[in-house]
């Protein structure tokens, strides 16, 4: 009896509360969003702000303690040193090259998947693209090491067919190849999504107006797929910009990228302010990149 009464009373509270929430949508939204928002602000934005602030501190060269004195010294060092400028350019150049090649490779692939392949083939191709993402990043990079190494699979194969051996290991060519391989799925998927969304009627209209395949691809498909390509490029570009493990493993003496500078300054030198200043540069580059991507409508394609 008492239990039932309590239950009724309880459900009374609940129904009143839910009614109150129903009348006040803002309260509903607040309760729903506060935990994830707090998480986001505390863990993500706060960490970024701390990073931003640290970049303008220095370490005492004498004690290597952090000195909380505002200064642009770290950024000045980065921009006045030709070595650091070279590293920034090398990193951006690598990211751009990887993005370009991935886009060129991904487009026909995604095109085939979206418009030509039977649903069975398409499923198979999806699995083929996504399966490598299940494998460990390190295992993939190491397997490339085995392919590129002296007398490795590549040179062994070239030797077998009587061609000149290339010795790609520990060059930026090997870094470039591995990056292209690693990030390709991140380009194919958004391009596929964009191509799949193009209504067949538009292609038919293009054909009815006398455009041949090439013209249709160039004037109809490509512009409509562009947001997908840009969306994919956000992944390939930013992932290349921040990676330091691939250069560390398959790169040679010229494989110093922004990520490697950050890594050595934190891991070995304990110069966190300098590492933070260096980290601001990819952030700034990505901010510009994302703003341009938004202008190109990439966010609708993700």
């Amino acid at each position, binding site marked *: 009896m008492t239990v039932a009464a309590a239950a009724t009373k309880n459900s009374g509270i609940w129904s009143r509360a839910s009614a109150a929430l129903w009348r006040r949508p803002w309260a509903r939204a607040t309760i729903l969003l506060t935990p994830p928002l707090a998480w986001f602000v505390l863990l993500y934005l706060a960490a970024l702000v701390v990073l931003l602030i640290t970049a303008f501190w220095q*370490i005492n*060269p*004498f*004690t*290597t*303690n952090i000195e909380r004195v505002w200064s642009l010294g770290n950024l000045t*060092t980065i921009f006045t*040193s030709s*070595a*650091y400028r070279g*590293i920034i350019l090398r990193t951006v150049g690598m990211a751009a090259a990887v993005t370009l090649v991935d886009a060129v490779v991904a487009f026909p692939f995604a095109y085939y998947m979206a418009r030509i392949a039977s649903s069975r083939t398409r499923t198979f191709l999806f699995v083929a693209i996504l399966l490598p993402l299940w494998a460990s990043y390190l295992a993939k990079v190491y397997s490339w*090491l085995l392919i590129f*190494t*002296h*007398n*490795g699979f590549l040179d062994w194969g070239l030797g077998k067919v009587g061609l000149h051996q290339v010795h790609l*290991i*520990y060059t930026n060519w090997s870094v470039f190849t591995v990056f292209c391989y690693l990030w390709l799925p991140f380009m194919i998927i958004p391009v596929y999504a964009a191509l799949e969304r193009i209504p067949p009627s538009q292609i038919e209209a293009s054909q009815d107006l006398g455009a041949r395949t090439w013209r249709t691809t160039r004037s109809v498909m490509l512009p409509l797929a562009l947001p997908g390509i840009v969306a994919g490029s956000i992944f390939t570009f930013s992932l290349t910009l921040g990676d330091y493990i691939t250069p*560390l*493993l398959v790169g*040679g*003496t*010229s494989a*110093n990228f922004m990520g490697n*500078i950050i*890594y*050595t*300054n934190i*891991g*070995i*030198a*304990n*110069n966190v302010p*300098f590492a933070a200043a260096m980290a601001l540069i990819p952030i700034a580059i990505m901010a510009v990149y994302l703003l341009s991507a938004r202008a190109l409508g990439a966010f609708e394609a993700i």
Partner: protein
Amino acid sequence: MMTPPSRRFSRPLTVRLALGLAAASLVAAGCGSSGSSSGSTPTGTSTSGQTVPTANLPVLQKIGKGEGQLNLIAWEGYLNPIWVKPFQQQTGCQVNAKYAGSSDEMVALMKNGGGGQYDMVSSSGDADLRILYAGDAHPVNINLIPSWKDFFPAFQSPPFNTINGVHYGVSLQWGPNVLMYNKKDFSTPPSSWSVIYDPKYKGQVTVPDNPIQIADAALYLQTHKPSLGITDPYELTQPQFQASVQLLAGQRPLIEKYWGLASQEIFDFKNGNAVVGAGWPYQVSTLKADKFPIGTTIPSEGATGWADTWMLAAKAPHPNCAYMWMQYISTPKVQAEQAVNYGETPDNKLACAYMNKLQAGSCDEYHANAPLSYFNSVKLWKTPIATCDNGKPDCVPYADWVSAWNTQVK
């Protein structure tokens, strides 16, 4: 027996050189002569009149009943069940391990005397002085550790763990960074580091991807360019530093790969990506175990290296178990077990025979019976700081080593 989860292995670049990290308390204590690079005269005297805050704490006179627990901060691979389990059975002291990733982390964990939580830390030569000058280490009654008598003299009272005759722990093990070469490519074994600067081996040289490599260059110049006046490869004035960096910049075209992981160097030797280079005894023993024709030597110029100590925390909650651990870890058999499993040199000279029992030839391999001249040829790592040994602020601090490595060498 070859199962070293070596810390150098697991922590690519930072590894021991993490010593490069903040030398704050060391500097505060004004003890530029931190290292034991002059190991031939282990006097254990104080540096620059600084005192250790805990120097006058009373030491334990007699080991009592074990407390049942022992909390240790250690490098990975230093608390192997092979020797920890028998210790627990013998003493009833349960060992609780806290693995640290760098010298800096060890110093941080030992703050406030270990916080009443930790009993001991297996720190390296560079961190030791920071810990004891901060007042975080407790004096040790070395007479309670019988095997200490059997230590090589250089490790009985080394300047990095013994100040004014007061011990703050017991030395553990040490090791050099050696010259490695593929025997197939060297009919006569090289005897000088000059081979890693020789254009003849273009594209076949490998050295660690680590700024402390500048010290190796300085060590080479100490012999080959006496006009620079280098006396300590970790204390370089601006001209000495620049000369060392120049040497490394000239070496760069010869190098195909700066190695970051021990496994990477092993891979490169095996696959012919490198035929000569600088590495650790661990790589050598691994390659030998795989029947690879690897040769190794400490060249005539000497080599860089490291030395570790089990330091007692100022607020150790389980001092009796800590002393039992020091007794145990110093015995020849346990010293041999750690040396063979980890790939380093024991401090106990009686460990040699046990090492050969565990793995034939390992005593020679890890130089456990080598003469003092061998020890003297190894310049143990320490943190480069701005204050030179003579007290002048003319030396190049470690942060500059890192930026030079990244911008001028690589």
